[in-house]
């Protein structure tokens, strides 16, 4: 039966043609991004991974001998502590952002009324303004010669300026100041998307407002909290500017350590090993986020 024999042949040919078309389409559409990812993300990471096993000479030159010195310094020395402190500060910032962000998001949703757009506008503007300028502005307010101190001195309340800069409090405040808008907006979006009838049902069934909030509203806005946490937690772990402006040399975070090794000390192998550690920490966090919250949550957050 020659006719039947021909069918599979033409089918496989069609399949082949389809495959070739897919390959062609992929090259056409995806080659630029693949080049970016492979050449400018993976390759640089591979290179600093390689450098992290090398040594630095007395003049900042690289000595090409294989050593575990940098890895050892990280696990044994104070660097590990700084990494833990960064993760801790990120957790703390995230928690405080939820604590301060949730009430305002809730207020705007429920009672914003005709001012809703203005409220949201006032939160979006800081999130879009230059990050560096905002930190500078905060420093103007709380610095040793800053507005708060000079005001208090002029009023005769204090005689010596209060040391706010270079304390744990200053770093925490600056982190919350920088990232709070990115927590408020996703929570607001989640609250807006809430089905009001569910809340009414809870009230009708006799839930107290308190109970209703913790058993209905909060669980239903988990998506927004997760999105906000991704936007706040991940960049905070690798923060450099906040600790360098508000922590000075007293409070270091992982990001400032990496920057310090590269820009001030010029020890590329040590800086590389710290950068690899930081990247690994972030990949771990990313993995946990995708596992718990799903990839959609992550991509939606962006």
């Amino acid at each position, binding site marked *: 039966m020659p006719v039947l024999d021909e069918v599979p042949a033409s089918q496989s040919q069609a399949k082949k043609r389809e495959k070739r078309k897919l390959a062609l*389409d*992929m090259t056409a*559409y*995806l080659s*630029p*991004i693949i080049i*970016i*990812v492979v050449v*400018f*993300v*993976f390759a*640089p990471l591979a*290179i*600093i991974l390689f*450098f992290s096993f090398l040594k630095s000479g007395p003049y900042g030159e690289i000595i090409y001998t294989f050593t575990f010195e940098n890895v050892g310094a990280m696990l044994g020395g104070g660097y590990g502590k700084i990494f833990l402190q960064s993760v801790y500060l990120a957790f703390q910032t995230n928690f405080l952002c939820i604590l*301060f*962000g949730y*009430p*305002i998001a*809730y*207020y705007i949703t*429920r*009672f914003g009324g005709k001012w809703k757009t203005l*409220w949201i*506008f006032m*939160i979006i*503007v*800081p999130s*879009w303004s*230059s990050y*560096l*300028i*905002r930190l*500078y*502005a905060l*420093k*103007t*307010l709380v610095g040793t010669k800053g*507005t708060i101190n*000079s005001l208090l001195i002029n009023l005769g309340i204090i005689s010596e300026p209060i040391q706010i800069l270079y304390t744990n409090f200053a770093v925490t405040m600056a982190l919350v*100041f920088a990232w*709070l808008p990115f927590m408020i907006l996703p929570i607001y979006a989640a609250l807006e998307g809430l089905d009001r009838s569910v809340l009414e049902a809870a009230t009708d069934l006799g839930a107290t*407002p308190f109970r209703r909030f913790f058993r209905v509203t909060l669980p239903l806005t988990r998506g927004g909290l997760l999105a906000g946490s991704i936007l706040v937690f991940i960049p905070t772990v*690798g*923060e*450099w*500017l906040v600790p360098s*402006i508000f922590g000075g040399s007293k409070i270091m975070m*992982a*990001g400032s350590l*990496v*920057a310090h090794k*590269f820009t001030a000390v010029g020890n*590329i192998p040590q*800086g590389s090993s710290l*950068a690899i550690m*930081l990247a690994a920490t972030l990949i771990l966090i*990313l993995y946990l986020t995708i596992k718990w919250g799903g990839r959609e949550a992550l*991509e*939606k957050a962006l």
Partner: protein
Amino acid sequence: MKKKRTASKILWVLSILTLIFLWAPMILIIVFSFSNNKYGSSWEGFTLKWYLKLFTNDQVRDALMRSLIIAGVTVVIATLIGTITAYGLYKLNFKGKQFLRTSILLPIVFPSVVTGSALLVFFTRFLHIPLGYPSIIIAHIVFCSPLAVFIILGRMQRFDWSWEEAALDLGATPFRTFLRVTGPQLLPAIMASAMLIFPWSFDDFVITYFVAGVGSTTLPIYVFSQLRFGATPVINTIGTLFVSVTMLGLLLVYLMQKRTKTGS
């Protein structure tokens, strides 16, 4: 009913306090940009001299021009790459797609210090690209394109694709279809990504600082260098202009959205 009102009042107070926390520093530097005080940290009478100084400052003008050029080139290239990548990711199904998507996320979620230092080492020790415009623009494209991909991909998922199918069914070539049907439909998404990427590129300090080398001062790098020498009122004026431009831009977007909503 009364209980509800007190609850809303407490929430109002909390919200206003949060808003003050977010805005007080910004308002302060806006006010001080008009103050006579030469350290820019207290009020000593109204003046416009810092603005005059800003506009006649060659360093600031150079830095601003450099930042605008970098952000302009980055927006065009990153949006272009973002558009075709998003289209490819949406339309094609292949092995390793999830892996590719996760890899594209990496430059967005990596700390800037990691991206910056890795690129610096890569440029100086491996590729031997001169630091300056080439290295800065490549670095900006690297961290902006992924953002464009996900912004545009997000909008593509809420899209009516039947127009494209109709065009193809009626015999238009894929290229012509993209140019005449899909492209114009995608235009709002492309604009949105460009509007987001421009400030990202323009404001970026950390990555740029690593790969800029000597002499390529962008505006954020200029601001940072001034911070080291101690604050000057000129930074207050730059800050004021930054916030004003952001507000104007957002207002424009809002009005445009409102018009298209009422128009259709």
